[in-house]
């Protein structure tokens, strides 16, 4: 889900087009190595920091057991690290088609 509030003077249509432009970019171009590395670092860090507490560890294990195998929690980070720029572009191409989306506009009364 992508959501946002346009600043004063920006129309909902303008906002929608700006978002669609970015989604098209993701579908057409491979992201740069530096950007991919950054996102992977942030992702890994968040996963790892979350697993610091016993409660979160327990919830993570329960989640993975629910999906079929609790031990997958150990290989989570590696799976994300193995994603390539190509994978991302392919996934974007498949997911971010206009036919695949619903848009909700929430307008102010005045």
């Amino acid at each position, binding site marked *: 889900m992508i959501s946002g509030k346009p600043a004063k003077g920006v129309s909902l249509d303008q906002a929608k087009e700006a978002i669609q432009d970015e989604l098209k970019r993701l579908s057409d171009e491979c992201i740069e190595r530096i950007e991919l590395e*950054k996102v992977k670092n942030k992702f890994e*860090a968040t996963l790892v920091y979350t697993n*610091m507490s*016993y409660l979160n560890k327990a919830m993570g294990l329960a989640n993975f057991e629910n999906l079929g*195998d609790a031990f997958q929690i150990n290989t989570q980070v590696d799976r994300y690290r193995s994603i390539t720029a190509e994978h991302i572009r392919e996934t974007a191409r498949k997911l971010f088609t206009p036919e695949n989306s619903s848009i909700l506009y929430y307008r102010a009364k005045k």
Partner: protein
Amino acid sequence: MKQSNPDRTIAPEFREISDIPFLHPEQKELNNGIPLYTIHAGTEDVCKIDFIFDAGLWYERHELNALLSNLMLNEGTTRLSASNLAETFDFHGAYLQLSTDQHYSYLSVITLNRHLSKIIETLASIIHEASFPQHEFESLILKKKNKFLVEAEKVKVISQKRFTEVLFGKEHPYALTAWPDDYDKVNLEDLKEFVQKHYKAERCRIIASGIIRPELYTLLNKHFGSNDWKSKTLLPEPEFEIHPSKQHFHLFPKEEALQSALRVGCHAVNKLHPDYQGLLILNTILGGYFGSRLMSNIREDKGYTYGIYSMIISLKKAGYFFITSEVGKDSCQAALDEIQFELKRLRTEPVPADELNTVRSYMLGEMLREFDGPFAQAASFRALLEYDLNYDFYRDFIHTIKNITAEQLMDLSNRYFKEENIYEVVAGSKN
């Protein structure tokens, strides 16, 4: 690979909380004497480093200086601009937190150990090479002031700040007296001077938690262990007198407000005092959890508020107690009356055994969360550090929670919740 399946027709065994395994920190010193406490634990290869400086509100001579000088550290150094700094932390998935309280200023960083060297190097530039750029200073002032202008209109914020003034007197650092206009009076040179004087080796302590790699000590010594970072002369400790208001009721009118915010409370004691732990338990019964006296009466039964709770605040030089809530404008006096009613009940009736046992279980459960993982343990350790207390404090607390009697609690309420000592502060209208 799967484990053999446990018998899911049998629920896990229920056990009372008996003991909490504390992770005692190891203590070392950097070459220049800075104490370094490390808590080595956990399964994740990460590390949190807390720098604690004697650089809190206690030490500022002008409003907002402690807060803003701490924030300005991250607005640029002689080597790295504000956006360089942001990019460095962001790229490595590291997080920097800056904060200030009454006595201390903090810089805390969490990082994967893989990036430890880079992150410590960056932190060193922040602490030693802050450049205080004019443009970033002006942006910061504008942003913070605008945010504060909105906050300062809220009755909740007004009652909170005014309550501290009533309790301590406007001149005391524990009184939260900064208002949005004070942002206009902040001087960049004063901030620079504040950092130069207060972010010094002899005013610094470091706590590290998580997986402690051997190179951590070397890196910290390299970047923070130099004798050059010590001051030539020690600064005197400022002293302040507390001047509580002679008036016990204060109204700060706000005509347009739909709700009134109230703060009711009095002076109490801090962690060093033998009564502190008993007071915490008493406080929980009164207003420290969802099933508390105040919630059950004023929210559940009377419907005057969405939420009401109470707290004991422990500070280095004082402790205080307060009850806080926002109530419908027309229910303000009624809410104040019910608060007094609940305080009187605690003074005159012993707490029934069932209720006391519920609170015992609740508090032990909450305590567990405060020791869940190395970062939480470090925070619990940090909470004792300024008082020179050790983990006996928590051990005693567990004992007190399990053993305190209704009579002891009643005695505490009579000594600490005396009607004539209580202050009432209302922001909004009293109807």
